């Protein structure tokens, strides 16, 4: 970074890229909370289950990670962000719940009430 304006330009580039990506490939994103608390509650198993479902259904989705949002009690947490829809957080899930949540949310855009905690204002 050679100057303040270069940072600004870079910042704009990222936002533009994100917007364009959303327009072009419309990929759903599955985000898993992978702080120490999340991992201690079994987040790694959840991520493996997500990978399995994605492979099995041949889904075109992005799988990413995030840190701790503070609700340790509800770990492990998994967010799903569909193109054109707000990001939704699911909590206290087990490996066996992953398939159903993805099926309903990604394919039918329905929220699985049992695990849904909140949506994120973007």
């Amino acid at each position, binding site marked *: 970074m050679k100057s303040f304006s270069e940072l600004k330009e870079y910042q704009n580039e990222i936002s533009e890229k994100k917007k364009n990506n959303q327009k072009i490939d419309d990929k759903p994103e599955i*985000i898993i909370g992978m702080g*120490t608390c999340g991992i201690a509650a079994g987040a790694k198993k959840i991520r493996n289950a997500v990978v399995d479902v994605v492979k099995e259904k041949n889904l075109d989705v992005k799988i990413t990670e995030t*840190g701790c949002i503070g609700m340790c009690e509800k770990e492990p947490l998994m967010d799903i962000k569909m193109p054109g829809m707000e990001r939704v957080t699911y909590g206290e899930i087990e490996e066996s719940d992953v398939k159903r949540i993805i099926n309903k949310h990604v394919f039918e855009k329905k929220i699985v009430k049992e695990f*849904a905690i909140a949506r994120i204002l973007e």
Partner: protein
Amino acid sequence: MKEYTAIKELPYYEELDFYKKQKRIVLQNCGLIDPEKIDDYIEKKGYQAAAKAITQMKSKEIIEEVKKSGLRGRGGGGFPTGLKWQFAKDAEGEKKYIVCNADEGDPGAFMDRSLLEGDPHKLLEGMMIAAYAIDADEGYIYVRAEYPLAIRRLKKAISQAEELGLLGENIFGTEFNFKIHIKEGAGAFVCGEETALMASIEGKRGTPTSRPPYPAQSGLWGKPTNINNVETYANIPFIIDNGAEEFNKFGTENSSGTKVFALTGKIKNTGLVEVPMGLSLRDIIYDIGGGITDDKGFKAVQTGGPSGGCIPAEQLDLKIDYDSLKEIGAMMGSGGMVVMDEDTCMVDVARFFLTFTQSESCGKCTPCRLGTKRMLEILERITEGEGKKGDIEKLEQLGKVIKEASLCGLGQTAPNPVLTTIKYFRDEYEAHINDKKCPAGQCDALKGSYVIDEDHCIGCGQCKTVCPADAITGKKQKAHTIDPEACISCGACAEVCPVNAISN
């Protein structure tokens, strides 16, 4: 109840009880961005404050802004951050250092870990601004080795920032150079104390030294050094970006901004919360935390880790900031908040904390090394039913001396849990000593023998099988009885009883 719902039926985060009263400045990005991607951080206006500070502000202006914000050290002491920076800036020397204390050792505290794991770039940005303000060109982050994930993410963040030229030489095209190193702690609680921490970075035994000289004059390798905690640095980008005035909108007169607390223990919603200073304990424990697990009664909340105090129910409406906590004998500390219910024995809690500080005492100064040992002996005696008249007074006296005469923060605060539990729960101490009873039923030696309620006993015989002392007799299908002479009060029978007919 329907199994599925439409998205518009879901509440927003801000509408959940857990988040309603929170104000997230430090944790703004935690749980939302990918901590391993610098682009995610930059998109959220990351490094903009650093760019502003380095290209548009003089170091004097930055320090003034931080002073005006009223930011105080979030590691526990509460010393004004701007003033600390001023001392380091004014100190003479070609070479200066920035140090970040990430040696989060208080049992019950994990805010630094969450921040390092969830948004490491925020810390780097805060350190950059501090370095520019005091003319330092090198920084160290001292992290506990028990936090492997935090260390990994920090290392990644540093190399990403270096790649983009945000760390290194001629940052933003100016003459400012800055590099950051990571030092892993090796397991010594006392290294959270700033002089001990610096000794440890230098590769020595981590024992504290007496101050003055303060680190600002003679710190790392004898050079002027500014040392702050993770959360303190993480507040800086907001202050520079939005101005001190905006920051001052949150908090109380003498404690501005927010504080991150780790809410744990017997509370429904355990977790990490960031609230404006001045919120009451009741707000935090009941509104945000959802109250006590199993709807039991609240007994006390322990703040400030092993250096803090136990706050009783009478003080639940206390508006918390640095000064109010100090007034009642507790302290902010790093922000651990452990909630205890009616089943917790306060004498045992005091013993628990003192066991910790006693074993972590580095041994350099006598009041701490010997004083905590003697206090612990008395507490152990009391919990084992061997308490004597005069023990409480002796604890108070020892506590006072240790607080006054110890060399560093560890010793100066070690007696706090004991002194506050005596102050607010003296009757529990007296019950242990005079009546040989533990009102909470936690101290094994003071538990009476167990009794079976004959009306409820179904005669299943499970208690008889597990009893290690063979103290239980009775025929199948008939009520059983426990021989009080033989009973060792282990409680194994009460644990297996399917109808909860056994109690002590």
